[in-house]
């Protein structure tokens, strides 16, 4: 169904493990916890069927939830991202690129579009995540700060990883 199915399976496993084993243990001052596993959803091909996109988003989120003991929080955020992804893709890139069945990566989109794509996606995902976690607007400013700082870190890590991979 998808080109390079095996590649995606490996990417799924690696991203989940990196997230739960390494990044979840990095909590700088309690404000910054980067979540880069959504890179998996970002890199799925444009032409992927909708049910598959939502299903795999849910599966990814629930895997992270199982490891970090937060049932529903990550899966809710990833399903939201999966749902909005087609819209974001239309927003940042032209119709030809989407219809050609490309994967939305750095080389296909170019830096400016890819940056926009990552920033919008990370912001949406993290916004849901942090507010679902605190579950109130009581500490609104603190949650806002965590959202912005963590998003910046996630974006930087995701972009850096893409540069390292596509340089070779």
């Amino acid at each position, binding site marked *: 169904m998808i080109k390079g199915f095996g590649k995606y399976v490996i990417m799924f496993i690696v991203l989940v493990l990196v997230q739960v084993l390494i990044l979840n243990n990095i909590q700088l001052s309690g404000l910054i916890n980067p979540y880069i596993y959504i890179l998996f959803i970002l890199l799925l091909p444009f032409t992927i069927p909708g049910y598959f996109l939502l299903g795999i*988003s*849910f599966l990814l989120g629930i895997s992270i939830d199982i490891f970090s003991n937060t*049932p529903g*929080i990550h899966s809710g955020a990833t399903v939201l991202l999966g749902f909005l992804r087609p819209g974001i893709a239309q927003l940042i890139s032209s119709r030809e690129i989407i219809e050609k069945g490309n994967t939305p990566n750095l080389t296909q989109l170019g830096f400016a579009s890819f940056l926009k794509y990552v920033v919008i996606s990370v912001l949406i995902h993290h916004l849901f995540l942090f507010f*679902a976690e605190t*579950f109130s607007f009581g500490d609104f400013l603190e949650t806002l700060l965590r959202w912005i700082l963590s998003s910046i870190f996630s974006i930087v890590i995701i972009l850096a990883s893409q540069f390292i991979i596509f340089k070779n």
Partner: protein
Amino acid sequence: MRSLFRFLLRNYFLMMFLILEAISLVLIVSLNDYQRVTFFNSSNNFAGTIYERFSNLDDYFSLGRTNARLAAENASLRKQLQMRIMNQENYPINRPDTVEAPAYIFTSAKVISNSVNKQFNYITINKGSRHGIKPDMGIINADGVVGVITNVSQNYSTGLSLLNKRLLIPAKITTNNYFGSLVWDGEHFNTADLKEIPFHVIVNVGDTVVTSGYSNIFPDGMMIGIIKKFGVVSGTNFYDIKVELSTNFKTLKYVEVVQNTKRAELIKLESNNITE
């Protein structure tokens, strides 16, 4: 009907999104402790009131039983009082110090939500921070130990019930004062396991198990249950003791929250031992 199917099929992406998001939300609210308390609290005008109204209505039907229980508790308290008065007459030197504040303060509360059928059961009561409830206070009722408070909102508190495998209570056997820890076996709502009682101790079926007072949550000697049966596990040095709990978690209605007023002092003192 067919047009409904066609509609669903055409909008399957949106439908699937809504279903998966709903599943996530249910998971968030039902499985995360913190979110449950907050959800409960933020919607207390709705869910909280309905719960409480229903509970109030339900109260009328159990008035007879509640009265009988209160009368029995009164009788037992009166007996204790009498014994204390007699003691004081015989040994006037034992008169309690009235200057010192009491070590334990009790607050009565009503159970508004409770379960017995999960591996980790929680209990919700209708008193919260407004009434001076704080985390790590004990919950008891007339029959014995019920649980420990873990989360407090303004008007409600939730806690681990004794029927929660994460709760360990220091307990001792009254006949010989040996202590171990009591933890629920996860099987039946009126039995728990007493662990860490070594072999050389003489244990009998019917011995009373009470709190040991080492936990600084419960006072010394609160009833927990009686020993139902005990056995030997091969390869260990400890008994496998089954305790029949004296509290009936299925009919739990009124509880009291115990506050140890000297707890902070005790913890501060004991923490010195660790840092040395």
